């Protein structure tokens, strides 16, 4: 497969959130506002890109038996990098995302791509795979957080949209709203993909 095919795969066909249902913890936890959702998506994309490149470069040097610990070290190095970078430059976002920045280490999307793709593919394709998956994840987070922010606070990216005639349903930005939005969206995507074979 070529670069663009690998890239598009993550966005639609194998979308990590809605098709593979990976990395649900951050998906539900940080999508209280669009800004947080996109921030989390981009941070994960950065880690995914870095770890995919390095694991792909080192794929012939890492012994098979200790590959998981080796992957974990590579992934957590990039997580530490983005953690410190965000603390320095976007302090507010860093505080809003809180514990979920260090927890990118255990996001199954990243380990999954390392194990299933980067450890057996050339660098260029691994980059395409990482970008596709990362952007697919970011788009999914944006969609969920858009719905939750709109219904929960009546705003889009912080601008008032609905507040003049709509009483915001606070439940949508609280934990139950996260489960509800994700459940209904997953059902909707299942329905759509079953309709067109």
């Amino acid at each position, binding site marked *: 497969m070529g670069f663009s095919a690998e890239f598009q795969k993550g966005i639609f066909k194998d979308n990590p959130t809605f098709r593979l249902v990976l990395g649900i913890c951050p998906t539900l936890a940080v999508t209280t506002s669009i800004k947080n959702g996109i921030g989390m998506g981009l941070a994960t994309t950065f880690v995914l890109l870095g770890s995919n490149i390095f694991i792909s470069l080192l794929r012939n040097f890492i012994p098979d038996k200790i590959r*998981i610990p080796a992957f974990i070290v590579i992934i957590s190095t990039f997580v530490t990098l983005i953690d410190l970078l965000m603390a320095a430059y976007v302090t507010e976002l860093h505080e809003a995302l809180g514990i979920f920045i*260090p*927890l990118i280490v255990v996001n199954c999307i990243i380990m999954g791509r390392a194990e299933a793709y980067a450890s057996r593919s050339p660098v260029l394709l691994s980059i395409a795979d990482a970008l596709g998956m990362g952007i697919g994840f970011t788009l999914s987070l944006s969609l969920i957080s858009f719905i939750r922010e709109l219904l929960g606070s009546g705003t889009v990216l912080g601008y008032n949209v609905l507040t003049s005639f709509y009483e915001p349903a606070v439940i949508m930005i609280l934990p*139950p709203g996260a489960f509800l939005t994700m459940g209904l969206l*997953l*059902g909707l995507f299942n329905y759509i993909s*079953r309709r067109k074979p």
Partner: protein
Amino acid sequence: MENLFVIFITVFLVNNFVLAKFLGLCPFLGVSRNLKSASCMGLAVVFVMTIASFVTWCVNEYVLVAYDVAYLKTIVFILVIATLVQFVELFISKVSPTLQRVLGIYLPLITTNCAVLGVCILNVQEGFNLPETIVHGFAAGLGFTLAICMMAGIRERLEFAKVPVAMQGFPISLIVGSLMALSFFGFQGFFAN
């Protein structure tokens, strides 16, 4: 003592790890098919969380802080947890083959359970001392067990319900999770004053 009790109830019910903090959702949705495997998974998590809280607290206090390399926390903690799980597995298989049979397949899954790393990082962030850390880890594990067992109980019943095809599996489980989170909201403000 009172302090420890407050931590216990807060983590166990009020800020339940799964339903209020969104930690450990993968096993919560993945291993909740039936009550038996759910309770085994819960037991394994309680076990590992308590030990991991203790060990990572010591590592943080006597290695990372002592040598002024606290920024390596994420890398060191995840490696410590991964090693720890391996040790626990070895230890259990030597000491109790029965327990090994019950927990066996769940232990490796726990390495990538974000609730375990989450509880260790929270311990450090909240600045807990050693007894508080252990109670926090233990209660978080119990809270996880409570949530996953409730979920498994409901899903066993759902087997017989007529769920629309598109909503079967993950979607309906998430809706159930939503209702459970809503009911756990009743505990909110328990220790507000």
